[in-house]
């Protein structure tokens, strides 16, 4: 049960509470996950007054403070429309008004379209203490075992990339059985991420161009079987949706040129 609630006024104060080894305290973002009273937790450190609710567009990318709610991202002009679509599919407004981006990454699992999309965009997390920059793709597989710090303060991703995703679900707003997100940069670099299975989305391909997206996707979900779908289905559809994503990217490029 949660027996202590702290609301620090700065990141420094929050870090001091979170690094205090005498108590097990967890950072509290929106609360959508932590309010489910966990055992083994002494207290929560509510970050709402730490000044982390901001979005900044820099020369290369977008940086989002850790207390930024998903709904705020929906309203921001520099957030990619596909990221917004992913947010809308993952969470209705009631949840978006509370849930923070890091909180969502922690709690949403492998069927989150938003996490899939951010992984495709090669998002980077800034961890404190130490301002360590960790790529989402490096953190996701390990987050339950080891943490690079006690607090995520920022999440950043490059803008200017093309991004599309396709998904299959039982109903339009159901959790996906399979989601394929493809990001492509001006250099041709193409990154394919699959979601809808397991604890986290996975990178199927990160290559210099889009050739082989179907094969890579098929291989990546070769054994992706659970109660929701067979691996045979997922690998076949992953390949098809990856190609469909590339077609959409190409069509977009054509229309823009």
């Amino acid at each position, binding site marked *: 049960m949660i027996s*202590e*609630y702290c609301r620090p006024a700065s990141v420094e104060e929050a870090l001091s509470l979170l690094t205090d080894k005498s108590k097990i305290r967890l950072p509290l973002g929106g*609360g959508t*996950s932590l309010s489910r009273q966990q055992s083994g937790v002494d207290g929560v450190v509510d970050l709402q007054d730490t000044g982390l609710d901001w979005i900044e567009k820099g020369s290369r990318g977008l940086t989002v403070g850790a207390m930024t709610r998903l709904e705020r991202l929906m309203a921001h002009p520099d957030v990619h429309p596909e990221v917004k679509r992913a947010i809308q599919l993952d969470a209705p407004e009631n949840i978006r008004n509370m849930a923070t981006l890091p909180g969502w990454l922690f709690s949403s699992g492998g069927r989150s379209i938003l996490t899939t999309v951010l992984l495709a965009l090669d998002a980077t997390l800034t961890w404190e203490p130490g301002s360590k920059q960790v790529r989402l793709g490096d953190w996701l597989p390990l987050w339950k075992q080891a943490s690079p710090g006690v607090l995520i303060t920022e999440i950043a991703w490059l803008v200017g990339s093309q991004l599309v995703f396709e998904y299959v679900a*039982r109903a339009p707003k159901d959790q996906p059985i399979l989601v394929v997100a493809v990001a492509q940069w001006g250099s041709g670099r193409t990154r394919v991420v699959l979601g809808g299975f397991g604890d986290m989305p996975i990178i199927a391909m990160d290559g210099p161009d889009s050739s082989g997206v179907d094969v890579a996707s098929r291989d990546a979900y070769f054994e992706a079987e659970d109660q929701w779908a067979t691996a045979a289905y997922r690998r076949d559809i992953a390949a098809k949706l990856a190609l469909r994503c590339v077609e959409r990217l190409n069509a977009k490029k054509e229309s823009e040129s």
Partner: protein
Amino acid sequence: MEITLNINQQDYPLKIATGERLLDTLRRLGFFSVKYGGCQKGECGACAVLFDGRPVNSCTMLTAQAEGHRIQTVESLGEHPEQGWKRTEGLHVIQQAFVETGAIQCGYCTPAMVLVAKSLLEKTPSPSEEEVRAALSGVLCRCTGYIKPVQAVLRAAATLRGEEVSPIDEPSAIGGVLEFGEGEGTPLTTGQGTLTETKVFPKLKVLDELSPMKTVGHGEPKVDAVKLVQGKPAFAADFDRRDMLVAKVLRSPYAHAIIKHIDTSAAEALPGVAAVLTWQDLPRVIYSTAGQSHPIPGPLDMFSLDKKVRFVGDRVAFVAAETAEIAEEAVKLIQVEYEALPTILNAKQAMEAGAPVIHDEEEYVNFADSDPNRNLAAEIRIDIGDVERGLAEADHIFEAEYVVPKVQQAHIEPHVVVTYWDEDDRLVIRTSTQVPFHVRRQLAPVLNLPVKRIRVIKPRIGGGFGGKQEVLVEDVAAHLTIATGRPVIYEMTREEEFIGARSRHPMRIRMKTGVKADGTITANVMYALSDTGAYGCHALTVTGNTGHKSMALYVGDGPYREQPNIRFYADVVYTNTVPSGAYRGYGVPQGFWPVERHMETIARELGLDPIAFRLKNALRAGELHPFSTAWSEGREPKPETIYTIGLEECVNQGRMAIDWDHKFGNKAWHAVPGKQHLRKGIGVAMVMQGTAIPYLDMGGASIKMNDDGSFNLLVGATDLGTGSDTVLSQMAAETLGVPLEDILVYSSDTDFTPFDKGAYASSTTYISGAAVVKAAEKVAQQICDRAAAMFAENGLKVDPIEITLEERRAVAPSGETVTFGEIALHALHQSDQRQIMAVASHMSPVAPPPFAAQFAEVTVDTESGMVTVDKLVMAVDSGVIINPVTASGQIEGGMTQALGYAVCEEMVYDEQGQPRERDFVDYHIFRADEMPELTTIFVETFEPSHPYGAKAVAEIPLDGVAPAVGNAILDACGVSLNAIPALPEKIWQALSK
């Protein structure tokens, strides 16, 4: 910890537990508009409040987080416009729009929807429909299908902008293709962009013209709408009582096991724990949880607590404690030693020789052909005509097997009950039930109390859909109240709803049909293997209805029409899964999936028009219900002639509305330009239901005249959000010649209201309604007699039979009148004093079926198999529609539940019997922003066995959507799907062959 919360612009200094959720704090403070949906992740949204003006879910927020912010609940919005001498501003515009448009059914999610709408309209005064749907998408509604809430928000927006809005009670024109939002684009395959007509009143085609009526047939606002839209404490849990304990239940982690030992000492020692009960503490009374009339038409096979558990989620122990947190902690401290037993997880396995026996208790009480040694809860063998001869006379025989899944009722208000001893030492049970009188009767022996020492109060119900036709939670709280002497509340969590409540019977159904080359059906055979789960509640009757309704529709043509050849056999077996039970449709949706898919296959293989083939063989007016001589639910069968069948007109109206003649067989229409992987398809299904159970269902009503000429209407009927209190009041008002506001309806309380069997079998408007009309006619007669006496006192001799009642007056043929107020004062105070009142009851010898034609339009992704349902049109013959607005709400909400059955809802178990679905994340019910277009058309016939010509409306929308969608999938891509839900992988597999 101590904090100050600002709620509705007032500061509340509070002491709270550090881990307390905002939802619990608000409810503790009496803000009962904030509802508990039992979920842990904010999936349902019923607990939404405005947080600095934005909607958030209070169940996923710590109270401490809210300090320094503005919390707003519906209690801060409008109020009743008349508060005695005090004038108020009345309801908020949004609340008023929800009342007017019929957007409130059970009303449980309404306060959340109103707040979401308020937030939206404050930032977006002219929202598009898509924006409205997106805003509402965080609040799940299982009743409405979202059309009317969307209409309410759009209407409120228009009003707030100062625009005129169209009147509600105005019938829509009918007769052509309904063009939805023409020029605004086709609905997108993502489900976005659906377009709702702004006209609230549904489309109505009247076949039997009636004299105009004042109240019946009008879209009157629901009589409970004003309180529900304000979030008044109307539901079972909205109730405070000093010293109330909170109950929790320890549930089995095993699918089948013996409890070898339970140690409750650690739990009992936990401070704040008041009682821990196990099977050793309770009397061993066997009973059935199925809320049905006496005698229960099924086996008695359940104990409140037993030494054996039969499914994951079965009850092991009850705990009562000072708080929910302490009770949860105590549950964890109970030590149980189980001896795991072999399990049965599917119906076929249950029938095998040597299968484990699930019910080996010596107290088991058989009903009819149940046989626990064979895991058989019920057996049905019905033969009508000569099936073998019919099959021999056929030119073609079609055989196939179909599968339907276990699904959940998913009412947003969980099962909830409060029990306490009153000052007379009578046990009061305030419970969210569809069957208050059955609860009292069935629970009495279980509690070792006589019926007369139990009072059951049914407050408002936050949806039931059959799930609350079950005596499921009342015993938990009652045993704990008996043990502790204190009030106890027991509310199920959402997880408990999935693992420990009831569900719809999954079935495997084999069809065999003989057909002549010209399309005449010569014989029709159905065998159903039905899975009742761990207990046999509703086992016989649900599965009986599977055949009784779906196999009755197609009798054949020519001589076969005179003498149909129909066989329906079924075995209903026990398995180690959560029990099946009543779910809206009551076995009939399971039947129409195979029947209507089978009819489609036959028509297509014989090259026949699917509509003409069906109508050729369908029942016609004046014919006998073919099963009426062979089987009835709970009573001896007696022949029943069906007098009203509007099916053909339903087909005509539905095919026009969906533009069937343009789309069916049109290759160009099936293609989606620019998207070769998408294919469109159109499908149809025809269905029938029942209206009550003949010779069994009975409802009572009493009506009493008050001093001012208003009336108290007391009914035992149970409004579970359907609007039955409203339509019963409308019939009383029409009969008595008063406006609806003069009828003060109260339902239902076993101490005060007459008996009614409860809300099930689509019977309330028909059975309870007829009782109301009978009582009203008796009261009307007394009013006429009194008026005649009053006329005579003034020298005017009038025969009471010549007096008419209208506009709160008794009118003599000469035109002279006395008002109801004058009549009431005269009767109560002035001369030959007596109370004008009457009691009546009604039971019907017939169960006239409603009929419907269901159409569906889909888009199939032929690469992934994903199906998007774009449009559903349902044309329904439910007799005279007493309230078209509430009735269309029933159809829209029913179609939406059926849509889930068609494409996404199912309950799946692993090899150990562990359920996959435990919340609304994995068990997906449709959200406001992913709905297809829904259209309801009523084809009115006058059913002569009801005083106002009504038949049932509530269950029939559950029957046809799945097969219509299945037939549309076949039309789109050639995949003949035999099992639902229509999962993408199933379509993909079929397309890959």
